């Protein structure tokens, strides 16, 4: 397998955990949560700082997850208790986290982890061939996360969470405190996003204060592309489609970079991709109705003949 192919798989899995987080807030909870841009970097910063200071990378990753949970919890509190609109709650947290992230990284915009032990060096030391360490670890992590989400969303609490995103009035009349479910969903989603940030920082051996910019759009692109291509018929299928969407997104990015698109244009390209993917149901509908019209004419012609 070429290095590019392996890179796509590695990135697809590691960022895939972020995509699962976005799926929870954006799709399950129906909450356009922009905290993601900040919490991805938060996870990276926390893990990088702890590893940089000589702590265990597993501890750093775990703490990154916990910090992400806390960030999501705060967004949820802003929205539910202080009644700030969903979009604005996320934006406020995103901006606030920018400063927090800089602080965590010791007021440096970048923290390098070169030649330091990470999860992957630990994992490779367990006997996985070095070249495959990241991909194997990523696969295990994304499978475990998907499985946990799959089971969680079918528990009583998980059903209530889904119903909160679907029909708030109805689930409140059935006795669910929707404030609590929103806070829980946002915490969970951002926890996963931060975990992904921690894994990515260790993968690329640095944490950068700007690495989360546009992460929500990347997450959306992956969720939507995955659902459009692989369908969302059942919960299991949707979760797999979302992870597959992350792989497809990385493959498309690798492809256009191969074709000579400069890295600086990536965000523009990602935004366009989301526009195309989001409008695809409408475009499909238009095409089908046009085909039907044409088909109707053909039938008429056939009758005359």
């Amino acid at each position, binding site marked *: 397998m070429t290095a590019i192919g392996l890179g796509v798989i590695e990135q697809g899995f590691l960022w895939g955990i972020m995509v699962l987080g976005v799926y929870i807030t954006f799709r399950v909870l129906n909450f356009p949560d922009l905290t993601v841009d900040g919490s991805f970097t938060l996870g990276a910063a926390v893990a990088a700082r702890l590893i940089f200071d000589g702590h265990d990378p597993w501890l750093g990753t775990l703490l990154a997850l916990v910090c992400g949970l806390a960030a999501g919890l705060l967004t949820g509190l802003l929205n539910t208790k202080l009644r700030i609109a969903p979009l604005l709650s996320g934006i406020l947290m995103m901006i606030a986290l920018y400063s927090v992230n800089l602080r965590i990284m010791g007021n440096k915009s970048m923290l390098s982890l070169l030649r330091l032990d990470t999860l992957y060096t630990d994992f490779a030391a367990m006997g996985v061939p070095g070249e495959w360490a990241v991909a194997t670890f990523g696969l295990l992590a994304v499978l475990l996360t998907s499985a946990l989400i799959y089971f969680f969303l079918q*528990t009583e609490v998980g*059903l*209530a969470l889904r119903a909160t995103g679907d029909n708030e*009035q109805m689930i409140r009349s*059935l006795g669910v*405190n929707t404030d609590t479910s929103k806070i829980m969903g946002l915490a969970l989603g951002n926890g996963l996003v931060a975990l992904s940030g921690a894994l990515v920082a260790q993968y690329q051996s640095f944490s950068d204060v700007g690495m989360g910019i546009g992460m929500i759009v990347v997450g959306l692109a992956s969720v939507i592309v995955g659902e459009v291509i692989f369908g969302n018929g059942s919960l299991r299928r949707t979760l797999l489609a979302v992870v597959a969407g992350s792989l497809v997104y990385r493959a498309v990015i690798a492809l256009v970079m191969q074709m000579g698109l400069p890295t600086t244009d990536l965000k523009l390209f990602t935004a366009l991709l989301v526009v195309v993917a989001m409008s695809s149901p409408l475009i499909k509908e238009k095409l089908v109705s046009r085909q039907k019209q044409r088909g109707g004419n053909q039938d008429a012609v056939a009758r005359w003949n």
Partner: protein
Amino acid sequence: MLSLVGIKKTFNPGSVNERLALSGVSLKMQAGEVVTVIGGNGAGKSTLLNSIAGVYPLDEGRIWIDQQEIQQMPEHDRAPFIGRVFQDPLRGTAASMTIEENLALALKRGLRRKLCWGIKAKDRDFYREQLSKLGLGLENRLTTRVGLLSGGQRQALTLLMATLVPPKILLLDEHTAALDPNTAQKVLELTEKLVAQHNLTTLMVTHNMADALRLGNRTIMMHEGRIILDLQGEKRQTTSIPDLLEMFKKASGQSMVNDRMLMVAGE
């Protein structure tokens, strides 16, 4: 059972849109009593039901269910006592979830939800049995997404969900108004069946005067946020629709202006 004392509610107080919705409503309902509520547009019927359910805080007044005072409780804390069906069939069910998932949500109405499996095997048999009573063939479609059902099917499902665990009081807010006449009739029959089966204390808003007199054992009429007529017992049995219209005129000083009500009254 249910008692309301001096309930007042004004929307948008102090603004140009200020609207007095309830101006001191008091009502006492016995256990098992089925009360129909009629009145023109903006009479406060829906506000009355929403106030009992706790959708918004009251300006004044108190509400008891049995011995418990509930007017301070948030909506979700009142769920153990109250089952609701809304006018819009889309509002009572979660469209992206399956029939069995919706029923599982209803089975836990007002109970603590835990991290255990949402739908258990033994629940499924119970759901099938309950669904088969609707006579819509839904018992074979447990894993169908509710969004694929028709409005009537969804309303029947909402009704089943509201009574799956019998509530202390059932609130029906013109729950057949958005359905076609045939479906409305079926849903109404189902309502009667479920109410009788569980002997439910019920408060039902309707715009259909014939239904209002035929169903249940008491009829109240509302106008401008007040109960202006309370019919029960023998007097109610001898009341006809024209009588009702006449009573409205006398009590409110104007004729019933709601087109829908006139139409139904003329049938």
